[in-house]
């Protein structure tokens, strides 16, 4: 798949390359952005921005790195920039407004999957653990692929995944006991 896209890029056909790129990478780009931002609307904006950047800069892709590595790097940088912008905005706003924003965000994440409690615990994980969990379980990816997406060593991914599962099991167990 990547090879066909690379051929289109090299042939100077960015529109056709983008048409193949979006369905192939949309979920991965969105998942990566969500893992960083913990906000579906913001992740959607970032995913759009990423594909626009890819389309604009296809001429600059020289093939020295894998296509996926290039896309993941752009996604991570774009999402981190968006996160910084949002933190700056929130830090500038009134505490009451921040509380409202946080409330909206937490509600947004409970709107999907019928597992509001699970989502709340996933969103509450430390950044790296949350990113690993989201990408690992979103499409049953291998730890190697998750490591490639996050630009971190495989063993680090394994460690984060192990800690995240333990933390989630403990949190959900405690929540179930409280409910019972």
């Amino acid at each position, binding site marked *: 798949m990547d090879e066909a896209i690379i051929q289109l890029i090299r042939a100077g056909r960015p529109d056709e390359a983008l048409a193949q790129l979006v369905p192939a990478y*949309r979920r991965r780009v*969105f998942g990566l952005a969500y893992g960083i931002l913990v906000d579906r609307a913001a992740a959607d904006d970032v995913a759009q921005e990423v594909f626009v950047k890819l389309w604009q800069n296809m001429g600059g892709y020289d093939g020295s790195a894998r296509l996926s590595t290039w896309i993941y790097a752009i996604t991570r940088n774009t999402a981190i920039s968006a996160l910084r912008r949002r933190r700056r905005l929130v830090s500038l706003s009134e505490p009451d407004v921040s509380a409202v924003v946080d409330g909206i965000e937490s509600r947004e994440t409970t709107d999907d999957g019928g597992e509001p409690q699970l989502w709340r615990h*996933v969103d509450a994980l430390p950044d790296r653990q949350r990113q690993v969990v989201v990408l690992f379980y*979103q499409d049953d990816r291998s730890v190697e692929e998750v490591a490639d997406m996050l630009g971190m060593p495989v063993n680090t991914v394994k460690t984060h995944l192990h800690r995240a*599962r333990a933390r989630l099991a403990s949190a959900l*167990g405690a929540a179930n006991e409280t409910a019972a």
Partner: protein
Amino acid sequence: MNSEENEAMRALDARLRQALSGLDAPEGFEDRLQARLPAVAAARTAPDAAALREKLEREHERRRAAADRAALVDGAAITVAGIGSLLAAWRFAPELARLYATAEQAAGSTAIGFATLALVGAALWAMLRSFDVSLATLAAGRPWNASTS
């Protein structure tokens, strides 16, 4: 890890897989992206025009600053020369008076007057030439800087 814990972990994995498999961009993602691209493409040419305008403005600003600097230097030079002339006239007034009296005796006051006028005229003409003024521009009645703007 005992079998009960293994079972709990497997159940957790299944729940996470089930919940996170639905994580995707909202409906109409591709349509919104396609709708955005023409505007992005149009905006890509705009920076070229903006960059050109900015370059011209920078060039204009650079020339204006250079003209300001030149005017400042000219002004300072004229001031220094004027003060120097006044000091020299003050310092050499007796010698100048003697020289004038000697020249007047030798050539007459009319010749001295014409010579003085000629010197002042030559100095004025040299100054006008430094501002690109010629006889043609004076005859045409054009402003002195019309050809330089």
